[in-house]
């Protein structure tokens, strides 16, 4: 009898976290229809130290596509229904300037999360996030200086440019959630660890704007949500 009770207690201890953690996943693919704008090679001839880092010139990244109409660099995130998150993740996100290019082109972060800006080049950069809701700033970063540390307090998609190299362009996606993903080279994304509930999923592309879809997670399941953007040739 005693052993049976112990067994049940042990079973309860083992099962209860699994019940509490019952977590769904939203995954899917971002694609486009139509003809996206042709990406142009970037002329960096004025900055030889950067130009020589690219055997073939890199191109602009306003629309980055993959095989089977996959659309990359799309930020997919929980815009409504997610749990309130008061604290930003402790780990910093990093934005690197290398070969006079921003890596990654689109960087997502939580409001209040530390952002580190690294200059890997032999030239000075002047990073300038063109924030409208957050405070706008621009900082000069000569070669060899330690990473800059910054943070954004409000939710916003911030275009980023370099005041020294006009072709350098990127985006910060400042979100109020840590449930976000950026579509990869097959257009795919995964939002794991979603407790049961009703969510609004938003997909944002820098030139095509946003799309939303609602999804309900009712346990340990994976729901598929696909987004399709209409591409324009110009």
């Amino acid at each position, binding site marked *: 009898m005693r052993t049976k009770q112990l067994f049940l207690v042990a079973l309860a201890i083992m099962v209860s976290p699994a019940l509490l953690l019952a977590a769904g996943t939203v995954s899917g693919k971002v694609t486009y229809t139509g003809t996206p704008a042709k990406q*142009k090679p*970037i*002329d960096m001839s*004025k900055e030889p130290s950067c130009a020589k880092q690219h055997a073939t010139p890199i191109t602009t990244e306003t629309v980055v596509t993959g095989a089977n109409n996959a659309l990359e660099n799309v930020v997919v995130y929980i815009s409504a229904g997610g749990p309130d998150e008061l604290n930003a993740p402790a780990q910093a996100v990093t934005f690197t300037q290398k070969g006079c290019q921003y890596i990654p082109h689109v960087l997502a972060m939580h409001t209040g999360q530390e952002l580190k800006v690294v200059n890997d080049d032999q*030239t*000075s950069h*002047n990073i300038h996030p063109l924030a409208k809701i957050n405070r706008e700033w621009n900082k000069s970063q000569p070669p060899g200086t330690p990473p800059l540390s910054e943070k954004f307090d409000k939710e916003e998609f911030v275009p980023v440019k370099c005041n020294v190299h006009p*072709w350098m*362009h990127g985006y910060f996606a400042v979100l109020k959630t840590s449930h976000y993903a950026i579509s990869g080279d097959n257009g795919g994304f995964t939002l794991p660890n979603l407790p049961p509930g009703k969510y609004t999923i938003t997909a944002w592309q820098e030139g095509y704007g946003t799309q939303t879809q609602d999804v309900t997670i009712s346990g340990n399941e994976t729901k598929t949500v696909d987004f399709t953007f209409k591409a324009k040739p*110009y």
Partner: protein
Amino acid sequence: MGKLFAVILTVIALLSAIPIVTHRWYGSGISLAPPEDISTHGHAIDEQLSETMIEAGLSFLAAQLLLALFVWKSADRKGDDKIKTFPGGAKGLVIAALVLVGSEMLALGVLGQKAWANVYFKPAAPDALQVQAQAGQFAFYFRYPGADGKFGALHPDKIDEGNSNFFGLDPANDVDSRDDIVSGELAIPVDREVHLLMHAKDVGHSFYVRELRIQQDFVPGLDLSVHFTATKAGKYEIVCTQLCGLGHYNMKAYLNVLSQADFDAWLKQKASEQ
């Protein structure tokens, strides 16, 4: 003591003669001379600068040596000696010097404007290669009209640097702009006149190529132009010589003077990238 001053004056005058003597040692690296001229009009400007250098230099030398001579002669005055004055008073001499220097300056100006006007007042030949130059913080961009020979209209509101639309073209609606070629370097064919149409995107900048003997400001709101013919293939630096902001030190581009065949190939390559 006075004689020592006269000697120092002479030494200073003779040392100042060094840049005058060496001012035409182009490309030697020793003198202040600019690098070798690669333009058809540059020799007239060099000639004019040389003339100015020689005349002003000789006048300077003569004045300094004369001053040294008088200092030497009038030095070591005893306490009871009368102060020596110029015989007949200085008035006539001062007037003569004014007239002499004035007419010299006037002559240099009148003759010099010929060299200048030849570049800035004479219109470019109608068949000159038209290239548009845009200066903006902190880079130059150049635009070629493409196969149709027409520049698409500019729409400042359409400027989108992240999309490499530095000029503000509207290819969606404006057919002329679709084949326009935009480049970060200025490639031109050798021995062909180039008509550079210049405008500023933001603040004042300047287009300066030492080897071309061309320096022209970009003035916001004004469409300015220069024309020139490069005579020697090679790669030369275009620098901004008007303080335009924090990144001014880094505002440059390259002038790439190519043979006609290389230029055609370059243009074709660039056109395919647009």
